[in-house]
């Protein structure tokens, strides 16, 4: 690492973000479909199919319907998926196959600005997806407002957290197949065991503790609290966790990317 007396991150990272936005706008009609249909499918399958078997769920001392329980978690999952898959597979394609980063690095952009632009873009995709899903879920009457609006800043925070950890994996994997490891060892278990489809209280105690270490647990928890209007001060811990997670993985992603690309 070279010693530098000028800061390597300026607002110029927005140029990288703009490039991704421009490409996204070219096929936004297709990009809009998954966040629109996904909650519909889940709500129909689980809401109509499963809730008859399950009935109500106890949440914060009250009984809520199963659909009410999972709908906010679906937003949390979508926040995770959108940024994580953007900064893993999509960023990897741009970095490795398209040499887009190489081209950017020959301009006044710094490596840190390129990577920051990518992560912030990942968070933007999380935000877009969350907003679309909110429209769909609101039409089922499953989000309380005004608390529900807190889901939007939550999407940005969650997007930065999962975008950063995704970018970290992109910096360390040798080829695109190796993403299977973080996907099946990190993302898929989270999708299932982070209090998304059942309360983590149903797990044995050791697994409950383990689940508390997962970022999606906190993201889903916060999303549920905001959607149902049940937020309490204890939720600040969840926000703190996501902030801390970002503060660890964001600089780590920058560092590992520098080691990978500048040689």
């Amino acid at each position, binding site marked *: *690492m*070279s*010693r*530098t*007396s*000028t800061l390597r991150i300026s607002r*110029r990272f927005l*140029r990288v973000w*703009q*490039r991704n936005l*421009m*490409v996204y706008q*070219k096929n936004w009609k297709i990009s809009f479909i998954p966040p629109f249909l996904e909650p519909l499918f889940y709500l129909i399958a689980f809401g109509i199919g499963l809730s008859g078997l399950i009935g109500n769920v106890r949440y914060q001392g009250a009984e809520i319907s199963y659909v009410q329980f999972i709908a906010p978690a679906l937003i949390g999952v979508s926040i995770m998926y959108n940024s994580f898959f953007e900064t893993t597979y999509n960023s990897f394609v741009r970095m490795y196959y*398209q*040499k*887009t980063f*190489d*081209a*950017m*690095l*020959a*301009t*006044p*952009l*710094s*490596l840190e600005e390129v990577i920051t632009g990518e992560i912030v873009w990942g968070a933007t995709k999380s935000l877009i997806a969350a907003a679309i899903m909110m429209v769909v879920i609101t039409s089922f009457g499953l989000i309380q407002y005004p608390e529900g609006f807190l889901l939007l800043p939550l999407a940005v925070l969650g997007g930065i957290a999962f975008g950063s950890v995704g970018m970290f994996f992109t910096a360390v994997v040798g080829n695109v197949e190796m993403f299977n490891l973080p996907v099946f060892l990190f993302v898929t278990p989270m999708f299932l065991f982070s209090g998304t489809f059942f309360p983590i209280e149903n797990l044995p105690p050791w697994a409950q503790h383990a689940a508390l270490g997962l970022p999606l647990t906190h993201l889903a928890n916060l999303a549920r609290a905001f959607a149902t209007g049940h937020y309490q001060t204890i939720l600040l811990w969840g926000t703190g966790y996501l902030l801390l997670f970002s503060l660890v993985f964001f600089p780590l992603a920058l560092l590992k990317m520098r080691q990978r690309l*500048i*040689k």
Partner: protein
Amino acid sequence: MVYGFSPMDGGSLQVFGLDISRDWRQIKSRIGVCQQENSLDPDLTVLENLEVFARYFNIPRKQAREKAKELLSFIALDHRLNAPVAELSGGLMRRLVLARALINTPDLLILDEPTTGLDPQSRHQLWDRLEGLRKKGISILLTTHYMEEASRLCDRLIIIDHGLILVEGKPEELIREHVGRDVIEISGPTLQLRSFLQSHQVTNEDLGHRLIVYFEDRGELYQRIALDYCREGCVMRTATLEDVFLKLTGRELRE
């Protein structure tokens, strides 16, 4: 190192009199780079490639569009503004990479093997453009393995082998100095010829089945060799930069 791809392991590096470790952004905004690998953005069209690239330099939108159109007509691609990059041929892509490197009107243009893998037509097209730029007074730093390209385009040439500078100078001067004016290539040389060359102390390179003779006296020697020692398989030609390169760096295959 000049455009920040490799870290410096020691010493100092200045471009335009500026220190690369401190003023890297200012330096990078004044250079244009054509990388060896195609790094055009396949998600964007021809025009968008230039406009998006201009944004990385903070060039205002209107100015960027004008410059992009001017450059596209310079590389004769102005009829395909909205074509996806993937539809372009290899030669056109290379020209577009050149145009992209010029978007910021650089003071220094860096070209890394710009014509590797191109067909002869495309190569000559690119050379024409580069000569045009040279006439306009842009400094060009070019790396290449093609000696024909180097002698045609370079005012000052450096041959580097394993990281060490072997020679430096104008192409013609290097040829005169290290090989001479003319070269005779003889395939299947006879013993008599070898002893003739040795007795007359003519500089030559012996490759076993092939002899390369370097000389100065405009044809006289060639006449004697051709008439007395080899009626066939004997060719005289003008010395080139390739002779210099092979003589200095050897003929073994490289990693």
